[in-house]
């Protein structure tokens, strides 16, 4: 790792101030950032830890909306959402491994937007709102491609608001080495319609499979997806699976998610 200064502010305001410095970077649980730093792939002058800010660790459940602070760990989400939003809790309880879940945070995951991460599928599939120190961003606006988001310099995720659906489920097919999602499909049924978000598969990062949403709006059953498919052309093809295989898995996982929802 390159040398950097470490600060651990106690308030969002202090964190924002610290991040104003050029090349300062926010540190969530560090489960992605620290391995990146070890490889010297990033060179921040200062790391601003967000894990000491009580406000970012709050979890609220109001009027069918689950609000999770940006620095809440995956393990804490798994526990806190178990009753209110079981599909989200289940997703959180299968990110990485137990030790990773004790450090990794929802804000860190969404800010990083790894194309194979689980939380982007949950946020997009739930039509969540990303709350920052500056504004509120809808999930549809937030994700901008691989590792790209709507976040601006110095902007930090303070909370994520999940509208709780009537039913939902997340199915993840593991990449056997990293255990990230080779393909993950989040299906959520709301009064306003069904949302289907896919992670791991596309060269553009997490995306909504609108054709499936329409089919499931008409009939929320696995069979409804028969005859529908995603185009292999935009899928990731690599050591762990061809484009065609990933496109195929999107459908298989989507059907399983509908069946399990």
């Amino acid at each position, binding site marked *: 790792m*390159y*040398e950097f200064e470490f600060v651990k502010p106690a308030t969002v305001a202090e964190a924002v101030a610290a991040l104003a410095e050029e090349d300062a970077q926010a*540190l969530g649980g*560090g489960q992605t950032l*620290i391995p990146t730093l*070890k490889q010297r792939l990033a060179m921040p002058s200062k*790391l601003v830890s967000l894990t000491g800010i009580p406000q970012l660790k709050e979890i609220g459940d109001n009027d069918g909306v689950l609000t999770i602070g940006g620095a809440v760990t995956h393990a804490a989400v798994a526990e806190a959402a178990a009753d209110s939003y079981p599909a989200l809790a289940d997703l959180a309880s299968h990110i990485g491994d*137990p030790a*990773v879940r004790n450090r990794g945070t929802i804000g860190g995951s969404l800010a990083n937007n790894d194309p194979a991460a689980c939380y982007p599928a949950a946020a997009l599939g739930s039509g969540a709102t990303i709350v920052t120190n500056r504004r509120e961003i809808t999930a549809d606006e937030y994700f901008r491609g691989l590792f790209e988001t709507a976040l601006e310099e110095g902007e930090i995720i303070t909370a994520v608001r999940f509208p709780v659906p009537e039913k939902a489920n997340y199915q993840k097919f593991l990449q056997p080495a990293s255990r990230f999602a080779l393909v993950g499909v989040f299906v959520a049924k709301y009064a306003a319609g069904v949302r289907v978000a896919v992670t791991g598969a596309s060269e553009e990062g997490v995306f909504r499979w609108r054709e499936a949403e329409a089919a499931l709006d008409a009939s929320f059953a696995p069979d409804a997806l028969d005859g529908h498919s995603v185009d292999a052309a935009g899928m990731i093809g690599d050591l762990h699976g061809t484009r065609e295989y990933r496109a195929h898995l999107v459908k298989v996982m989507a059907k399983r998610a509908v069946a399990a929802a």
Partner: protein
Amino acid sequence: MAKVSMTVNGKAASGEVEGRTLLSSFLRDTLRLTGTHVGCDTSQCGACVVHVDGKAVKSCTMLALEAEGAEVATIEGQANADGSLNVIQQAFQDHHGLQCGFCTPGMVMSAAALLKDNPKPSEQEVRDYLEGNLCRCTGYHNIVKAIMAASGQDVSSIAAE
């Protein structure tokens, strides 16, 4: 350099570290607690697992300064007060749950975290929980068996030791 202080295995510990100093380095290099091992750089092998405030974490993926004021438990503090092996350690020895010993500290710390939350895990629950702990020697058979035995379950019907 900055000063960091924490409690490690019940004793106060402090030292001068850089911002980039990992908790694993602080334990190994500063405190000379070399039972915590480092086996990868991508946070997957789990040889470095310790407990911070009662929760299993990968000490190679946490800055030492993030543990300021924390209660840290490592493999060196796991034995009983009289120095004898604790229940999990003893089960690992009884059931040949280790060979080269390199992954073992992380395995024992993960097992301890699992049994705290889930005192009688099924075979599948043990296997799932060990997702972040790699072992290259045992084929996991005797590790899973040892953890189930440590939870007080009868493992005599499981094939050969």
